[in-house]
């Protein structure tokens, strides 16, 4: 078996990104205030690249299932392969669902398939947790477990490198000069760091009483017809759809056709089930006329439908929807309300 752990210095890593940028679209996380965001690798902005930290503002799906993707046109355009670095455990876990939807079943989505297979994912351990992080309650962890090609764990001024896939191995072999032998205690340091961040998240979960998947199981069905409860949950919802759009597991889209001078094109565009028109048909019928029904639909899809059809809770505990909601609707509090069968409206943030 070939070796699968190495170390790489920050400088060598950025040199590697510079070289890779010739033939690839290299996406890395930058830090701005308290937020991290993905953008193309720019050597001039090396000082604000943060590969550790926590999950970025954009969900991983933004790159593998982009917001507006051409799925049909007369002109076939090819783009350079994608390399995304600094991807966190919560986002990697969302690939279970995105892959199930777009690659599973009788019909595959060839556009997703091509992007997904052509993308190299460089994961990275979280080096701290936000108050909104609750991945552990959703069976996740603040470090990559699956679906990455290479993982980086920050150790002082270098990274411990874990090679997971053949694609990752090929990259390491091609650029072997950048990868060094790891130090003897690197793995211990990595595991201590992981344990520390796990501890932070467990504290957040305990302090807030956030429910876990075992407790949540069955709670949507149990309260399905308790209309007043759902109305309470939705009382500050403004139907903006932000929770859908920032969610790494939300996969719904609508096909949109457009005609330019030369040809007709079809796009796959993100849609949001909180929008009133989501399920409405041309004849006017709408199975979810009321806002609380649409909010309930979101929770039903994530915590009842997907557990039922694929034994997967479609929430990674990334907490993006909590930050994005202008109505301060906190998914953790809604889940608590569902498990307890009553809504204790928390004080405003």
């Amino acid at each position, binding site marked *: 078996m070939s070796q699968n752990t190495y170390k790489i210095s920050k400088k060598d890593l950025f040199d590697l990104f510079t070289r890779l940028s010739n033939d690839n679209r290299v996406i890395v996380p930058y830090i701005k205030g308290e937020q991290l965001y993905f953008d193309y690798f720019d050597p001039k902005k090396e000082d604000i690249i943060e590969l550790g930290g926590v999950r970025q503002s954009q969900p991983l799906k933004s790159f593998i299932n982009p917001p507006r993707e051409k799925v049909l046109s007369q002109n076939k355009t090819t783009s350079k392969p994608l390399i995304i670095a600094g991807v966190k455990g919560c986002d990697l876990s969302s690939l279970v669902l995105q892959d199930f*939807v777009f690659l599973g079943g009788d019909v595959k989505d060839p556009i997703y398939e091509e992007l997904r297979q052509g993308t190299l994912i460089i994961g990275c351990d979280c080096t701290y947790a936000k108050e909104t992080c609750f991945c552990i309650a959703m069976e996740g962890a603040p470090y990559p477990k699956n679906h990455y090609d290479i993982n980086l764990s920050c150790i002082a001024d270098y990274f411990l490198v874990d090679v997971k896939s053949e694609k990752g191995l090929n990259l390491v072999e091609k650029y072997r000069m950048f990868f060094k032998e790891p130090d003897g205690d690197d793995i211990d340091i990595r595991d201590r760091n992981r344990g520390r961040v796990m501890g932070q998240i467990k504290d957040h979960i305990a302090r807030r009483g956030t429910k876990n998947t075992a407790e949540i199981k069955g709670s949507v069905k149990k309260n399905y017809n308790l209309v007043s409860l759902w109305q309470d949950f939705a009382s500050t919802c403004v139907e903006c759809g932000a929770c859908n759009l920032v969610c790494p597991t939300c996969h719904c889209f609508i096909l949109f056709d457009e005609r330019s001078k030369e040809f007709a094109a079809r796009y796959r565009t993100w849609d949001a089930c909180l929008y009133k028109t989501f399920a409405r048909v041309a004849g006017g019928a709408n199975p979810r006329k009321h806002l609380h029904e649409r909010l309930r639909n979101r929770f039903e899809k994530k915590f009842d439908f997907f557990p039922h059809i694929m034994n997967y809770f479609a929430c990674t505990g990334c907490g993006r929807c909590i930050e994005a909601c202008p109505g301060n609707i906190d998914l953790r509090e809604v889940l608590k309300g569902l498990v307890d069968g009553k809504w204790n409206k928390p004080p405003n943030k």
Partner: protein
Amino acid sequence: MTKNPYAYIEAEILDVIDETHNIKTFRLKPRGDIGFRAGQFMDVTIPGVGEAPFTPSSNHNVKETLDFTIMAAGRVTKLIHGMKKGEVLGLRGPYGASYPLADFKSKEIFIVGGGVGLAPLRALLYALFNDVNDYKNVILKYGARTPKDMVYKNEIFSWKDRAPHVSIEASVDVGDDTWTGNVGLVTTILKNDNINMDNAVAIVCGPPIMMKFTTFKLLDLGFKDSRIYLSMEKNMSCGVGKCGHCRIGPYYACKDGPVFTYDKIKDLPNIWD
């Protein structure tokens, strides 16, 4: 390479038949291989403009042409209505499950249609007529708002000539000088008709409110909930169970339906909306 499920083939409009003031039947000649079984649907595209799902209303044994009976209801259907013979549409599909004709063999087939909901049922009727003696009885009950709102006016009453065990009855909500048949909602012409309920199936397609009260009436008459086939046509975009729009409880209407037996969906919320 994986086939692109969002791609369509071209289909030329061979003929446009005015059915009512807002319903037309388009006879299309597909420029490629695209068949279907009665009950399955296809997406009809105006290239560069948009698409909408419809169940063909023609005989599934005929491959050269396909009929789509379309009511002008939304953006795409209104634009389709403006299209003429010789213009080109797009087709992709077929999607969904077909009516289980093998299970219908030697049974009494009780079909209830409302308005433009007769379109997919005409495909079913034609499929039944292909082997009409395989079925014990074929009974159609059709309801429309007024005589002018009936589709397939020129052929509907001739269907009873296909075989002695085919019967057709229609009702209108509001009659006019020409109408000599029943006046009332379609549920007023749903009677037992000496049907042996242990050996009968009912198939319903129409507007949601009509489907709801028809289903309740059929249950009253003694039809089993597992033998009542309902067309649950929801907002569908992709047609292949990925876009998430048409979910009904644990199902996607596009993939697991659009036809469901009532027992599968009766406990799900808002199925009639």
